Each structure stands twice: as structure tokens, then as C-alpha cells.
């Protein structure tokens, strides 16, 4: 038994050696990037997890507190509010997907002026989020902004809405603005993937009498699976760390109701200099993000029967 195991180990080692000697140049090329990632990402990341177990004032010496930071966070009411806000805020990714998918399908049908329409769709994504946040903060300002100004002037609204004073409406505005700003990224990826679907597949579907919905479900969607998976995973990760527009529009309020975890992390680290606890918030945020991506991929695989596009 023991000799069988050592024999298998030997064979595996030889196989690795063969692969290495055959592809040494490829590995050599990958090595700098690998080192870069390990030194600049993985080491600080692991150090971050370690530091989340410390009380670490910015500029001061860390002291070990074990799970104290996590214990404090989960017993702190605003953190629970923040978790809820983060979960709701994560919906922006689905809204972005919905808008991007609809826009990509619509653009595919356009025969003339496609570039112009696509270009105009990308406009919001080409502007820095800080700029679009400023524009929307002005547009949606209850007293001075044009949107509520016109709505009340045209008597569509009896009076302006102070959306920032209520948690739900403040979150809705943030969801709207982030969706408006970032959906073109998904649109780009989905559009590119859509263009690569062979026309023959649609012709075949038509020959078999498939209607538009059936064609979409049986031809288009399975072919877009990889693109949607990539776009959604990337956007979930990116969206969860967006804070500029939240700070611009609501400053995390009212109360803590729009203080998503990234805002909480920013406040603890930059404004209060409590690095240990901000690392703990970061670890929770990371866990949530990975959780979202994992659940999404698993559900998507399950829904599409595990077919790879």
C-alpha cells in the first residue's frame, strides 16, 4: 500500500517536471505578474485579515484583540443597518444587467445608426462617477434641482419630495444613480457576445417555428451565459466598493440607512483612524462579495442545466 502511494507520488512529480520543462518559458513570463500579485495583493490582504484582529489606531501601535472587532461590529446596531443597506445596494447589479441586456438586444435590431446609439449609451460610463454623482445630486436636489422643479411646475407632483430624509427613498435614488452610471459596462460585454452568435442559429430556430421569447430563451440566453457570468461577477465586486456617489448623494444618511459597508469602512479608516475595525468591516465586505458571486454562479449554472456557452 505504502509503495503504491510513493509510486503514484513519484509519477505525479515526474509529470509536473515534464510540464515545467516543456513550458518553462511560459512560466517565466507569468512569474513577474505572479510575484506582483503575491507581494502587492495577497500579502497585504492576509495582513489585513491579521490586522482585523487588532485594535490599531492610525499611526499608533496595534494591540491584539482577537475577535473583539467582529464582536463589536455584530453587536453594533448601525452595522446591522449597514449590512441591510449593502444587501439592497447589491441589487444595483441586477438592475444594471436588466438594462444592459434590454439595450443590447434592442441595439442588435438596429440597422442604421448603430454606432451612434451605442456611443450615446456609453456616455455615462465614460464620465468619472464623481462627475455623474455631482450632476445627479444637482438634478435631484428637492428645492433647487430641475427634476422636482419641473414635476411640481407641471403639477405632476403636489410638492417636492425630500427623498434624502427617508431611508427607502434615499436608497432608491442611490440604486438609480449607480445603475445609470455603470450599466454600460455590462452592455459592452453583452453586446460583444451578442454579435458573435451565428445568424444560422436564429434561422434554424425560425425554421422550427420558435417565437421571439423562445428564441431568446433557447438561443440567445444560453449563448450569452459566459458573458453575463463575467460581467455580473466583475460588477458585483466593483459595485460593492463604490462610495463616491453614496457620499455625494446622501453622505450615508439619513442616520446609517445608506451607509453601505464600503462607506463604513471609509469612515472607520480615513475619518476615525480605526484601522483594525475598518479591516474587520473589509473582511465582512469581502466575504459578502465572494458569497454573492458564488451564489450567483451556482444558481446560474443550475438554471441553465450546467451547459457551458
Amino acid at each position, binding site marked *: 500500500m505504502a509503495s503504491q502511494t510513493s509510486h503514484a507520488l513519484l509519477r505525479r512529480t515526474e509529470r509536473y517536471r515534464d510540464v515545467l520543462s516543456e513550458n518553462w518559458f511560459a512560466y517565466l513570463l507569468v512569474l513577474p505578474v505572479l510575484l506582483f500579485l503575491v507581494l502587492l495583493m495577497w500579502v497585504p490582504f492576509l495582513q489585513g485579515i491579521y490586522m482585523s484582529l487588532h485594535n490599531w*489606531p492610525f*499611526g499608533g501601535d496595534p494591540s491584539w484583540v482577537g475577535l473583539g472587532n467582529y464582536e463589536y461590529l455584530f453587536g*453594533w446596531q448601525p452595522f446591522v443597518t449597514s449590512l441591510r443597506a449593502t444587501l439592497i445596494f447589491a441589487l444595483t447589479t441586477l438592475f444594471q444587467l436588466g438594462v444592459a441586456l434590454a439595450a443590447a438586444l434592442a441595439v442588435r435590431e438596429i440597422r442604421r445608426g448603430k454606432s451612434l446609439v451605442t456611443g450615446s449609451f456609453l456616455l455615462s460610463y465614460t464620465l468619472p462617477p464623481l462627475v455623474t454623482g455631482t450632476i445627479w445630486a444637482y438634478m435631484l436636489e428637492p428645492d433647487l434641482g430641475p427634476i422636482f422643479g419641473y414635476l411640481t411646475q407641471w403639477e405632476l407632483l403636489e410638492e417636492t419630495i*425630500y427623498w*434624502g430624509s427617508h431611508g427607502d427613498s434615499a436608497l432608491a435614488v442611490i440604486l438609480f444613480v449607480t445603475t445609470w452610471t455603470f450599466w454600460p459596462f455590462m452592455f459592452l460585454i453583452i453586446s460583444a457576445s451578442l454579435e458573435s452568435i451565428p445568424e444560422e442559429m436564429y434561422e434554424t430556430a425560425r425554421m422550427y417555428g420558435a417565437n421571439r421569447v423562445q428564441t431568446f430563451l433557447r438561443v440567445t440566453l444560453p449563448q450569452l451565459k459566459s458573458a453575463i457570468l463575467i460581467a455580473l461577477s466583475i460588477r458585483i465586486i466593483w459595485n460593492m466598493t463604490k462610495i463616491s456617489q453614496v457620499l455625494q448623494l446622501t*453622505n450615508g444618511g439619513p*442616520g446609517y440607512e445608506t451607509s453601505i459597508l464600503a462607506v463604513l469602512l471609509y469612515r472607520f479608516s480615513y*475619518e476615525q483612524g480605526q484601522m483594525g475595525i475598518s479591516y474587520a468591516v473589509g473582511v465582512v465586505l469581502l466575504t459578502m462579495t465572494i458569497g454573492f458571486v458564488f451564489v450567483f454562479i451556482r444558481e446560474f449554472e443550475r438554471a441553465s442545466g450546467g451547459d457551458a456557452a
Partner: protein
Amino acid sequence: MNRRQFIQAAALSGTAGLAGCIGGSSDSNSSGSSGTTTLEYWEYFHSQSEVAKTLMESSVEEFQSETDTQMQMNWASWNDINGGKWKNNIQNGNRPVIYDSTNSLDGQFIEPGWVKPVSEYKDRLDDEAVEQLEWAFEMTQSCYRGFDEGLYEIPIGLEVGAPFIARTDHFEEAGLSIEDDFPPENYEHLVQVATQLQEQGPADYGFQIYGAQGDVTDEALVTWTASEGGYDGMYLNEDWSDVNYDNDVWKEMTKKYVDLYQEHGLSSDKAPTASNEGAAQMLIQGNVSMVQGSTKDFGLLRSRAEDMLADGTIVFGPSWEGAAGNRGDFFTQCIALMRKPDGVDEDTWQQREDAAIEWINTVLSKEFQQEVPRSLATLPARKDVWPTLKEDELLSQSNFISTLETTVDGMEHGWSSHPGMNAIQYNIAGPLFQEAVRGEISAEEACDRAATEIRNQVTF
């Protein structure tokens, strides 16, 4: 461009860029060989308003043209100071010789010993200016009471209390007299006047409160608590060993503040998110008749409604005198020297400090101090310029300077320069007091929770 040309161009620009990164590391604070002293100056005042920006930029330019000093400016904002940028830079060896700021943000620099106490260079300041500043030096010491030295920063201007600001035309229309009914003499009078303004005046609301997280705790409310409770009404107790939010003074005043909106309906529904500046804008537009804002609103009003100040349509008035015998709290716009960092030659630093002292004397000069209320919208620290300011039409018609003079009389409680003030004033208390303004929690609960959270998160 073909591929070879592209690669050549990229290599050339890459090499040039790298050389720039590596080679451009000469000491930015160095004294030039041509006799010019380069002075690194981190500047905050300019960020407060357009008029403040104009004053600071023109003053720096003029100083440079009149002296052998080249100012290396870091035009900074509130977030640079509060958000860790300054501290991070200083910790990593990038330190200015001189900075200006707001005293309550600077405990984070004083605590590690980076700021030079004023006593170490007071004798190098202009004697005449110092003589006129002694009162402010004495008063300002209350801001640094938790540190060893009495004074770490030189006050340039003082933001004293939160003045009432009102529309005289609204008072007239509501059948009120601006001479007799303004400013309100106490809380009950405020409610009475604001109610009449709302019911009989042209504006929708009589008095706008503000609940924005950055303003709810630091303007009108703390003015009321300080005037009622003295040190008990400040954020921290006298020896900085505890926070005061959960004492009776804070609970009572917070309830009264919230009641103006929740019980009396004297403010618009914007109250929970309104900022002090937003309330001032509502006053300009005529949506409200009276606010209790900040002295700095004078800068905003000067930028946006100068004619209304000049013709006396918008006027200022001091807050009432409370049981503690004062009209509120204060904080300073201040300037300070930093200590010499390791690795810098003593003589070189001394030379830069001399240039910095020259700049401090410039901002303490009569000419600059006369501009302080007009552009920085605070009370000039130098007392001998006050009489001349009364001749200024804008300052006198709006009662601005007389309001500041009345307010500062008997005042003694300055905002602490505790290193954790951002959390104490804003990050922790702000959201909870905003919740109280919304009516989601009671004023008492907001005070209790703020105090508990601060005790949990801030080291005293």
C-alpha cells in the same frame, strides 16, 4: 506610426518618465541657492468660500512678490485634514513648515508632538500684533486644555457662536419689528417670533433647522448648550475625560431643537438633510424667514446675495445669553508652525521658519485682519481693527460685525482640539442626531446612544 516607431517612442517616454520619478526627489522645502527660501505651506482657509479663495491666493502672491520667499502651496480641503491625508503625509516624512486650519481638526497633529507650541516662537511675532491678540490667546487656550502647553496655534479669526440671520422684509410683512423682535431673546421668544413669521409672513416656514450629519451638532445646537451649561454644554468635559452628550443640558437643548421641526412645524421637511449652508440659501430665496446659522454664512451670502446684505434685507443678530452667562461656543481659524523633522539641517529649518514667521506677521497685520470678516467670515483676532470695520457698509448694514462683537463678549468655551473630535462631533453623533431630527428616535435616545458609542470608540 509603424510598430518600430511606436516602440521607440514608448521606450523614450518611459525612460524619461522613470528618470523624472527617480530624479525629481530634491528636497521640496529646500532653500534655493539664489537666496530664495522655499516654504511649504498647507493651506485650508481658501476652501471655505469663493471670497476666501480670492483673499488667500492674492495674499500669497503678494507675499511672494514682496519677499524672497517662494511659497510651495498645498491648497487643501476639510477632507484632506479630516480624512487622514495630512496625517499620513506627515507620518511618512512629508511635513510643511507652516499650516492653517480649524483648531478642532488639529489634535491629531498636536498629540504626536508635531506642532510647535506658540510659546516657543511668540517672541518672534510682531509685538504690536501680539499685544492686540492677547485676549484671543487667553481665550483660545480652552481649546487645548487636554494638552501640556496652553497654546499650539495662533488664532487668525474666531467663529463665535451661531448667529441668527433674518429677512427684515419678512419681519415687516409679518407685522414684527426687526429692532424689537430680533434677535430672539430666548427659546420661547424664538418659537413665538418664528410662528408669527410663518403664519403672517411671506415665507413658507418661519425658522429652518438643519439636520445634516456634518452640521446638526456643530452650529445652533452647541451654541444653545454652551450658553446654557458652560463646559457641560461642550462636547467634552473640562478635563477631556468624558463626553457630555448624555447630560441634562444636551438632552434638554436637543429636544428643544428637534421640537422646532417636529412639534412646532416651523421648518420644512428638508430639515433632516438640510445643511447650514442650505438653510442660508433658503433664506436668500425667501423660503424661510429666519435661520440660526454660522458666521461663515456671511461669506456665502456675500458671494450669492451681496445686495441683500448691503441694503439691510438680510441681517445678523447674536444668539441669546443663557444660564451660563455666555452666548455660545467658539472655534478658531488658526495658523501654526510645525517642529523640525529628523534629517533636516537646523539652519535650513530656521531659515524656513523665519519666512513662515514673516507670513504669520502678514496675516496678523492690520491690512489682512481687516479682510478677515469680509472674506473668511469670522471675527478678526486682532482687536484694534474692530472699530474700523464699522465703517464698512456691508458689515455694518448687515449687523455682522456688531453681532460678532456682542457674541464674543463673555465667551470662554472653545471647541476641543481632542484628536478624536471628528468622531465625537460628526461621525458618531451626526447620524444619531439626524435620526432625532427625523423623529425616528427621541432626542434623549440620540444623546444617550451618541455618548455610549463615543465611549466605546474613542480613547479619552
